[in-house]
């Protein structure tokens, strides 16, 4: 069973949700998931774009009205 770690980056201006996710992915095993909670609308576009570039898997994006939940699975 893969682990899932949640980062609550709501209201975090610096370094920002994507940077937090990149840092967290370095510390988890292949197959594990990172969930980022973000109130930054830009992250709901940036994170899927980066995940596609690097070759991880976008598991899901959920709009919670006021913040987004973005789940990424590490593939390599």
């Amino acid at each position, binding site marked *: 069973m893969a682990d899932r770690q949640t*980062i*609550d*980056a709501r*209201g*975090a*201006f*610096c*370094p*920002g*949700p*994507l*940077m*937090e996710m*990149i*840092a967290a992915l*370095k*510390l988890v095993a292949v197959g594990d998931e990172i969930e980022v909670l973000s109130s*930054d609308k*830009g992250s709901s576009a*940036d994170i899927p*774009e*980066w995940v596609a*570039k*690097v070759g991880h898997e976008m598991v899901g994006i959920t709009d919670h009205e006021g913040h987004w939940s973005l789940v990424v699975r590490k593939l390599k």
Partner: protein
Amino acid sequence: MAKNVLIVGGGMGGTIVANGMARQLVDELRTGAVSITMIGNTERHLYQPGLLYIPFGRIRESELYRDQRSILDRRIVFHSDPAKQIDVDSSRVVCESGNSYSYDYLVIATGSRLMPETIPGLTEGAHCFYDLPGARKMRTALEEFRGGKVVVNVNAPHKCPVAPLEVTFMLYDYFKGKGLLDKTEVTYTYPVGRVHGLENVANWAKPEFERLGIRYETFFNTKEVNPKEKTVSSEEGVTLPYDLLVTIPPHQGQQVIEDSGLGKGGWVPTDPKTLRRDGSKNVFVIGDTTNIPISKAGSTAHFEADTLVDNLVSLLQHDHWARNYDGKVYCFVETGLKTGTYIWFNYETPPNPSPPSQMIHWFKLAYNRLYWMSARGLL
């Protein structure tokens, strides 16, 4: 019973907490009702933001250091004895000497460390000014540089998020001053899809880069450096040639945090407002050591420390919580060798850089000296 406050870490955050508490607990320290003990890794205190100026010959090395004991209130007990194990279940910290210390309140302020070795070739191929040997080596490389491709390579996570921009603008001015601009191409790489994590800072820096002819490559997470071929490659599939590579390497928290089972990567799960370690009532965490998703910077540690001083003093004197940390961060930003700007923000307010000026640059230079008053809890 005397209450023991134990501070692990003698950097900016730990030192401000120790001195700030000592200044407010005069009677308690005199009567022995409270003791303050600090455990540090070194006898010397380093003003880390000053390292930025070393490669450009803009600060004397002697300005970067003070004897740790000389900046601590004399009533604080200081041991230069690195912590080896932090046991929050038995409220005890064991040090490398074998000595151990119990506490009623623990402050973890162990900071972060540079981890260039996590990227193949980075240590061998790149210059890094985040420690003194690296800053000296970069100074020599700049003195010998006669033009070519310069890459400023930023990795996640790292402390002092504005330093990569600062060193890029300072390099531009340095090359301009040496008449090397027409023979030099500067490229800045950044891990996310804009040139800085802070959107407003990125919106300000991007046109500045374009105005100065500084190239940038976003979505660049370093995969490897080939020092023989002089190339740096990203996870995203981009390879850049370089003649001079300056890196801000990825960071991790300290080994003692991992060895003590307090947090993956050396980052301690921490409440963003109370600064309490998750699951502990009497363990507080400040500075780079927390996993709070805000800047890892001296300024963050400073404002967290101010909050923590108020809370620990209030808890010791009145068993009462004083106030929450509001996420405040204030950073000067050098925009060259002669101008600067600043940003401040908190959990509610985004930053908005003011127009760069010589005056703010001078303020930053002044703060480089005033820092020692901050560390003493006076500013």
